[in-house]
Each structure stands twice: as structure tokens, then as C-alpha cells.
């Protein structure tokens, strides 16, 4: 995991404006990352490549001013690059098609003319730019793998009916995916994010870890030694912050 100090980039505290409302930049990033996710789903990408694409995008705009480049182009290049990094190869033509459809709903697919090829060239060029800006450090350690193992451990400790009743896994997974709307992934450790997501999912359904009070060590600390309650709270609050943007931005 990239050692990124909290708050240095990717929104977070800085994303909150003076009035406690998300700064315009954060809202742009929210929109663009939502585009990345939607395009990712339509391109048939798995969770981790999408997460990588978002991470690339966020990392890029940590380094570069938002006005310098078209964020959507960067997003398209991020998708393309993420496909390569996570070995789920995507074709630029599909990315262009899906993006075009996203920007111009119900439009016919682009003709494969010179304009199309120019668009393709710009994606490839932008990909090179992104790579250079990120100093070719484009592999990320995502919380997904941790989260899944945590879920399994918790599942074994919980009563099986209580587990069956509560869709904790799905909620945690959804929360984790959604967390990439912001720069969370850059500011926190993967394990911490995973625990925080799990914590929020358990809370949402009111699922208690049995005998937590009697335990010497809280469950979340078992998963990550250096995790503290404030960190979880921070992550949870950042996550919820992201969702507030969802309701604000149609």
C-alpha cells in the first residue's frame, strides 16, 4: 500500500468546504468516479479492476490540478490502464463506445472514422501521461481481499441464523465498492478500510459480535493490530460523507 498521509490528497477533510459541504472539486471527482464505476459495470469489469481504475484516477488528481486535464478522459485512460494492471484486458473501442453512450444516452455508436481513431489516440496518450504522473506506480493493495477473509472469520463466530438473516457480506462489499467514489483508498490502509466497512455493515443491521464485551481484544483489533477506534470512525464518517454526495448529486 502506498504510504499516503491522511488528508494530503483525494478529498477527505479538504473536500469539505467551509460550510461543511463538499467542495466543488470533490463533487467533480464523485461524478467522474461514478462514471468510472458505471462504465466498469457496463464493460463487465470485476470489482478490483474498477477499484484500481478509481485509485489511479484519484491518485492522478492528487498530483495534478483538476483544470489541467479533462477528468473524463483521465477516467477513460484509468479504466484502460486498470484493465492492463489487473489483467482484465479491455479494448479501447469498448471504452469509447460505453463512454459515448454514457455522455450521449440513446445515441448510436460512433462510426469508426478518423474522429474515432483520434479519440482512441487521446486515450492512449493520456494513459502514458497518467503512467508518468504516477511514476509507473499503478499497483494497489485493495481492501477487498482482506474484507472477504474478515467476513469469513466473523461468519464463523456469529450464529449462523443471525448471519443468514443479515446481508452483511453484500452490504460490506457494496460499501467497499462505493468507497472508491472518494479518495479513501489513498488515505487509509486497506485493512483499516476493510474493517471499517465491515463495522458499518454490522452496525447497519444491528448485528453484534458475540461476547465482544467479554473479549480481551475487540474483533476489529484482531484483524489489524494498529487499528484504533478513531480510525474506524474516521473512515466510516468519510464513507458516509460520500453517500451524502450521492443524494445531493442526482
Amino acid at each position, binding site marked *: 500500500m502506498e504510504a499516503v498521509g491522511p488528508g494530503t490528497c483525494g478529498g477527505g477533510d479538504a473536500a469539505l468546504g467551509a460550510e461543511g459541504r463538499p467542495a466543488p472539486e470533490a463533487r467533480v471527482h464523485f461524478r467522474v468516479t*461514478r462514471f468510472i*464505476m*458505471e462504465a466498469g*459495470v*457496463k*464493460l*463487465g469489469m470485476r*470489482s*478490483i479492476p474498477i477499484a484500481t481504475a478509481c485509485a489511479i484516477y484519484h491518485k492522478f488528481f492528487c498530483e495534478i490540478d483538476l483544470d489541467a486535464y479533462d477528468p473524463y478522459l483521465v477516467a477513460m485512460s484509468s479504466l484502460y490502464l486498470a484493465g492492463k494492471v489487473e489483467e482484465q484486458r479491455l479494448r479501447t*473501442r*469498448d471504452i469509447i*463506445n*460505453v463512454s459515448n*453512450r454514457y455522455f450521449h*444516452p440513446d445515441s448510436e*455508436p460512433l*462510426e*469508426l472514422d478518423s474522429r474515432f481513431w483520434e479519440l482512441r489516440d487521446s486515450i492512449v496518450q493520456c494513459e502514458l501521461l497518467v503512467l508518468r504522473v504516477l511514476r509507473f506506480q499503478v499497483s494497489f493493495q485493495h481492501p477487498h*481481499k482482506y474484507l472477504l*477473509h474478515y467476513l*469469513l*472469520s*466473523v*461468519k464463523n*463466530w456469529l*450464529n*449462523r441464523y443471525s448471519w443468514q*438473516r*443479515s*446481508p452483511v*457480506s*453484500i*452490504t460490506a*462489499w*457494496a460499501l467497499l465498492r*462505493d468507497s472508491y*467514489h472518494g479518495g479513501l483508498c489513498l488515505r487509509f490502509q486497506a*485493512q483499516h478500510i476493510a474493517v471499517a466497512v465491515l463495522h*458499518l455493515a454490522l*452496525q*447497519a*443491521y*444491528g*448485528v*453484534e459480535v*458475540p*461476547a465482544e464485551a*467479554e*473479549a*480481551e*481484544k*475487540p474483533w476489529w483489533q*484482531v*484483524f489489524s493490530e494498529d487499528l484504533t477506534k478513531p480510525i474506524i470512525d474516521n473512515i*466510516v464518517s468519510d464513507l*458516509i460523507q460520500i*453517500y451524502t454526495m*450521492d*443524494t445531493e*448529486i442526482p
Partner: protein
Amino acid sequence: MDRDLMRQSLNFHGPSLLSLLRSEQQDNPHFRSLLGSVVEPARGPPPQQQLQGRKEKKVENIEIQKFISKKADLLFAVSWKSDAPTTSEVNEDDEERYAVMPPLEQFMEIPSMDRRELFFRDIERGDIVIGRISSIREFGFFMVLICLGSGVMRDISHLEITALCPLRDVPSLSNHGDPLSYYQTGDLVRAGIKDIDRYHEKLAVSLYSSSLPPHLSGIKLGVISSEELPLYYRRSVELNSNSSESYENIMQSSLGFVNPGVVEFLLGKLGIDESNPPSLMRGLQSKNFSEDDFASALRKKQSASWALKCVKIGVDYFKVGRHVDAMNEYNKALEIDKQNVEALVARGALYATKGSLNKAIEDFELALENCPTHRNARKYLCQTLVERGGQLEEEEKFLNAESYYKKALALDETFKDAEDALQKLHKYMQKSLELREKQAEKEEKQKTRKIETSAEKLRKLLKEEKRLKKKRRKSTSSSSSVSSADESVSSSSSSSSSGHKRHKKHKRNRSESSRSSKRHSAKASSNQVDQNKKDECFPVPANTSASFLNQKQEVEKLLEKQDRLPYQKKQVKEKDRCPLSSSSVEIPDDFGGRSEDPRDFYNSYKTQTGSSKTEKPHKSERHFSSRRDSSDSFYRNSEDKIKIYGYRRFEKDTEGRKEHYRRWEPGSMRYSTSPASSDYSWKSVEKYKKYTYSGSRDFSRHEQRYQLNKNQGEYEREGNYEEDIKTEVPEEGLSSKEHSESGVKKNLPQNLLNIFNQIAAFEKEKGNKPKN
């Protein structure tokens, strides 16, 4: 809405969430009704203690509660729960697909009392437990549980939980004695939970797999080895020995954690569907995405329009005659969109114009497959099929052509060309069929005629014989002219017979004599063969020569025919009985028609003689008659001993000849003559056979022939024959003499007798000579 789930959440968060939910979800009709009913139990008995404990977290909880209330419609939606079945837990340890971790409570260091309590709360009937046998009693055995094999994975090794396995749940492994004798204290045993007394914390287990749920029924219960212990347990034992290991360290050092497929595997195990990824974002509900917006659909659409563009360009090329460019465009279109109907039709049309009808048909058919309603594809396909059918017709592949026409008609019933072509073809086929039938009939007729002729020939021979008999009776002693004729006949027959025996020694003579004897027949009949010898000058029909050349190879075939012969002969015999007038003029024709039959006769004789070799000569008559059902009655009919004599002679003769033949066949180099000459001897044999076998009845014919010969001035040859006979001795030697003696007894003409006596003398002379 999942009421139970919401109630659970409300119970946890208290009334503050309820009020938040009310304010947030007031527009949602589902919630309005739901929240009303939820209110009561939520308010019911709020435990004071819990409320206090929660108040400490109150501050941070408000944020979460707000979140829950905002997302409640998604969080508590019934559809949110995944229906994806969790993958089976069986045998997952075989190969570590993910980091199998020691139980969480072990890290959390939860007191044993709580663990025990939770174990008895959570254990279920049908779970697999693994334990060590602590004591064996007459009513069963007790085991101390060390871990769980299915369901929840807990750390129970230190909880001292004992379970009883009653005797009736222990399967007897041998049919005698106590089933418990198989088990020993300390054995590791895998068993299924059969009964749980949660209150008294008592367990009963069974070793019958019927105690397990269906999806686990494949697991073997009973004694297991320590290697079969679940991985999680082994990891937990490791952890106990080194409690400083953190969860993260164990996880990261586990091989399963770096498995590239770990995410997919665990997603399946946890029932998360990646193809329909969950999101709590309203704008990212994948169920709202239109299928048309997905990459594959867009690509397909785009490819189709692109391919169509290429086809258009191609068609333009085609119109100006640039066929190669057009083909390139069509191929490009099909490369872009494999199933593009327009491209297929256009390319098919191009193929058709270029004459590659098969390729055109392929393209049209593929186009129709993809778009069965494509009118042009259908039309073109019909036309091309008919055209191809025409081609095939020219190549005389009528059946293929017919199928093409039919295919065309199947596609378009109203297609006139196909119908016409088909009808025309049918007519033509019928005609040619008739033609062929006629030809076949003709052939058949020829065949039957041949058979008939052979039959006729026999008939005639018989008649001749009868006539001769009559004649002979009339003129046995008186008529000199007849006797002279007889003499000539007998001399010729004997000379020819002896001539055949000479092959070995005097090749030239033999061939000459056979030739000469042949010449008689060659004059009379046209079936004799000129064996491409330069010195031979007799005109010979080619077909017979060919048949003779093939003779050797056909022997086998002919042997098969042999079976047929007696039957034919019977027919002949029956016909014989009815008197038929025959003119001598017919005889030559007769021979001509028999070109093949003599061989059959010969072969039949050959085999018979071969089989009769060991028979004593004087018995041969009986044997002969018994062997040949037809000939035997025939003999009776004719009652002519000469004939029988002739038979015998011939029999012997052919025997000898056979030997000759055998000797010649492999290496004719021994003889000065070529194999062709051996054929002569063959022929002469046949001829002779004809003369003797059928022939003794047709002395008249011989007479006739020899008279003819005389007329032609060839009769002096006979003298040579006689000389030949004198100088040569047949192999048969004494036996033939016996023949002659027995034969002579009957009232043979005197001159014949003389000749026979002569032969006998020669035979005597040469009889002592060893064969070969």
C-alpha cells in the same frame, strides 16, 4: 422490505433510528406502513443497561443511524439479500483456495465459559464434529470434541465438551462381535451431531451418515487420521503454541491469501454476485442499467453498421466491375461482423458470378441461417442451386443434381426454374434408366442364351448320338463306308487323346497335334483361339482368346460355377428325352455359342477326375455315375459303352493333363513352348473332352468333321497322329489298357477296336516307364 431485519436494526439502534427513519423515509409507502407496526416492539422493553452502554456511542452512532435511515430502502430491501447459494464446504481444505484462519474467538481471547455457551447455542443437528474417544462403555463411547467439521468453525478444543455415541449409532464393521471393539480410546472420530440438549449441554452423535444433511452425505464418518483434521484446527493448534502470531501475519503468510483466484472464490463462498455488483449509490443500481448500454451490445451494433458500410463500398466496386476490390470489402465486412447477412449475400453473389457456385451456396445458406427472412438470400440461393444442379447434370451426377433442385424447391416452391430443371432431369434419368435397363436386359439375354446354347448343344449331341447308335446298329458289320467313317472318328479321337498325353516329351508334336486337332474344330467352330504365335495363322475371335487367357485366374470362379452345372445338365437331360431334330449345319454354331461352357465342363471334370484319382479304374464307371447324378441317368439313357469308355479315357486324360498343366503353370521355361502353347493343350483338352464326354454320342459329328477334313485334304494328319500314338505312351499305361479292354468287350466297331488295341500296345510298351 425485510421487517425482521429492520426490527433487528431498530432494536440495536434504539428509538433514535426510528425517528430518523420516519423523517427520511416518509415518502416511501413501504416504510410508512412498516414503521407503524415496528413502533410497538421497538418501544417495548428497552433494557436499561444496554441503553446506557449505547449512550456512550451515541455521538458516533447518530451519523451511522442517519446513514441507515437514508439508505434504508436499499439496505432492508428483500432483493438486497443475495440468493446466490454459498458454495459447498466439502473438501475445501484439499487445496487452500484462501487463507484458512484460526477461529476469531481465539484471537479475541474470549473466556471459555462464553465460548462453551455460544457453542451450545450455535451447534446444530447434522453438524460434523471431530473428537477423541475418551472412554468406551457397553452402551457406546464418549468422545471429547476437539473441532468442528462443518457449519461454524469454532475453537472448542479446550472446552472439554463430551459427546456420547450410543451403541445403536455405531455401525458394525464386521458381522460378528461388538461393533465397539473396533474403537479404542484415543481414536480420532468424525461423527455427525444427532441430538443436542442445549440446557444440559449434552450431545449425542452418530457414525451413520444418515445423520448428516444431504450436501454432506459424501463425508465418511468414523475413525480418521490426524492428517484429516481440518486445516483451521491445525492452524489454531499452531496459534496456541505461538500465541504471539497476529491474525494478519497468519493471513499474509498463508498460501491461499496470494491465490489469484481468492477473491472470486470467497465471493462465491459468501454469496456475493460480481456480475450484478451491489452498490448503495442510487445512481449505480446496476438493475437500472440498460442492456443496450453494455459494451458487448454496443460493439455488436457498431460492428454491424461498420460491416454494412464495407458492404456498400464493395457493392459499388462490384458495380464498376472491380471484383477483387469488392471481394476484399466483403471479406473485411465479414471479418468485422462474422454473421453479417448483407455481406454474406453480397459475397455469395460475387462468388456466383465468378462461377464458384459451391462457395456462393455456402454464403447464401449461412446468410439464411442468420436471417431466415432475407428475400435476396433466398432468391439467390435458389438460382445458384439450380445452376449448380445444371453443372452437376453435365457432369452426369444426376442424383446430386436432383438434390440441388429439390433443395431449391424446398426453399421456394414457386421457383419455376428449379421445377422445370427437376422435371427435365427426372425425364432424362428415366430415359437413361430405361436405356440401362435395356442394356442390362440384353446382357441378361446373352447370358441366358449362352446357357441355352450349351443346353441345346448337349441336346444336339445327344440326338446325334442316338442317330449314330441307330446308324451303327444298322451298319455294324455291313456298311463299309460307315465303318470307315467310324474308323476315322475313332482314330481321330484316340489320336487326339493320345496326342494330349504327349505334351511332356514332344512339345512340338504335341502343340502341332493339338493345333491340328484344333484346326478341325477351328474349321467347324470358331471358338478356337490363336495364341498370338506368329506362326499361327488361324483366324480366331478375340473375345474367346481373352477368355482363355483369363482362364487360369478364373478357375476358382469356374469351380464355383460347377455347382450350377449339374442343374443345367439336368435340364439338358430332360430336354434330351424329347426327340429333337438337328441338322448337322447347326453344329458349328453350336460350338461357337459354347465358347465358355467347355471350360466349365472341363473344370467340373477336372475336379472330378482329381477326386477319382485314387479310385480303381474299373470302378470308375460306377463312381462316375454316382458322382454325377445327371450323367448317370444319362448313361442309362444312352446305354453306350463306348461313351463310357470315352468318359474314362477322358477322365484319365484330363488327369494326366492336369498334371501337365500343373507342371507348366509355374515355370513353362522347361518347355520349349511358351505358356500360350499350354493353353493350346488346354483347349485341346476341352475340345477333346467335348468330343469324348459329350462326344461319344456324336460320332456322327466326328464323322462329319473328318469327312470335312478329308475334303480339305487335311486328313493325312491323322496318320501322324497314329504315329504319334505309336511313339508316345500315355502315363496311364496299364490302367488305360484296362479301360480299353473293358471298353472293347462291347460291340465296338472293328476299326475302333483295332485302334484301341494299338493304343494298348503302346501303353504297354511305355507302361514301365516312370512318369515324368
